């Protein structure tokens, strides 16, 4: 693992990996959309509105997954000072924020016809909204300091503290009375969702996961280049300053 924490080695590996991730991602998402929209049955209660689930549920899983990986990356960045840890967390944050937003948006569109409300302040919805604000806060903190290293550390502390929200989101529907229904797929007694609906959902989730890996690698490469440009610029200014002096 430590071997790949080296930026140059990471770059070489990333170039090789991208096509192997990007093509399956496109394939899974198009197949998932086709199955979800055209080749899966309507629900006995929700009718066609159930199709929103094929976007909503994978987005929610990604929102939680990305936040968890981000926190772990930040923790290892603070403790072991891995050179890529903070960069990967910074690269992941906007992707996670987008998935959280997608989850909130599709949930709202589903909520109006099914529940009768765009939004309610129950434990599940509120905790996911907090997750969205945690992502935004993380991104904002990164930009709040002139010295990127200080921004990195403050944002990392926020990400680590915010991890407490992840189990709260997951178990909110079991701990408290909520309007949001309990888990259908990830539960101990097995999925409560018919296989004809489960397969498109899992294919979509795989597609989202692959898509996330592609965007993460691309963003990490860009951020590393950005850092190198910054260092080169600083060196440049320093050199011109010293030559002028002589």
């Amino acid at each position, binding site marked *: 693992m430590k071997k790949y924490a080296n930026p140059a080695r990471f770059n070489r590996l990333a170039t090789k990996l991208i096509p192997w991730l990007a093509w399956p991602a496109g394939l899974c998402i198009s197949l998932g959309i086709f199955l979800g929209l055209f080749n899966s049955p309507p629900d006995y209660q929700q009718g066609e509105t159930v199709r929103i689930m094929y976007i909503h549920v994978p987005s929610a899983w990604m929102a939680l997954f990305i936040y968890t990986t981000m926190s772990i990356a930040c923790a290892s960045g603070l403790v072991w000072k891995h050179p890529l840890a903070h960069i990967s967390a910074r690269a992941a944050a906007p992707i996670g924020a987008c998935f959280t937003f997608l989850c909130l948006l599709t949930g709202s569109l589903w909520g109006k016809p099914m529940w*009768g409300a765009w939004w309610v302040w129950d434990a599940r919805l509120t905790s996911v909204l907090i997750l969205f604000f945690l992502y935004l806060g993380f991104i904002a903190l990164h930009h709040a300091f002139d010295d990127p290293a200080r921004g990195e550390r403050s944002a990392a502390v926020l990400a680590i503290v915010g*991890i407490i929200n992840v189990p*709260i989101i997951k178990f909110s529907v079991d701990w408290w009375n909520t309007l949001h229904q309990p888990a259908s797929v990830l539960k101990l007694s097995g999925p409560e969702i018919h296989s004809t*609906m489960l397969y498109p959902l899992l294919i979509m989730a795989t597609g989202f996961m692959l898509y996330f890996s592609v965007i993460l690698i691309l963003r990490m490469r860009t951020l590393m280049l950005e850092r190198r440009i910054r260092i080169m610029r600083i060196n440049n200014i320093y050199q011109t300053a010293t030559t002028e002096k002589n």
Partner: protein
Amino acid sequence: MTRKRRRFYFLISCMITLCIAAALVLTAIEDKITFFYSPTDLVLKKNMPRAQQIRIGGLVKRDSWKKPFNGLTHKFIITDLQYDILVSFKGIIPDIFREGQGVVVLGRLTENGVFQASEVLAKHDERYMPPEVADALKQSGKWEGNKVKQ
């Protein structure tokens, strides 16, 4: 002890403190977090807020829903299979509202024991299946009220 190790233990102890703090806070404000009370809570709990509006959740009792002939006032009974609450609601109800369905209503209990609702939300359960499967379950007798027999 190396500096890395010391930082690691510091992080772990911070996380443990954070978890305890969060658990204490969430237990303390449990009543505020809950989205709705059950009819049993409304009947048995002494400190239920009477002045402000509250939410009650439960199943719509079978054969209790009186659809309005004229006007828009719906009357139905919400039950948690222990206590029943008669609800009166004037307005448009959600699409998936039906008898046996989980619902959450917002309103307050009037003096004559009727719960005057100003908002009705349908609560969806965690089961997803095609209509044919639901029919087959009903025919084979594995369908019980709002739950599938395990």
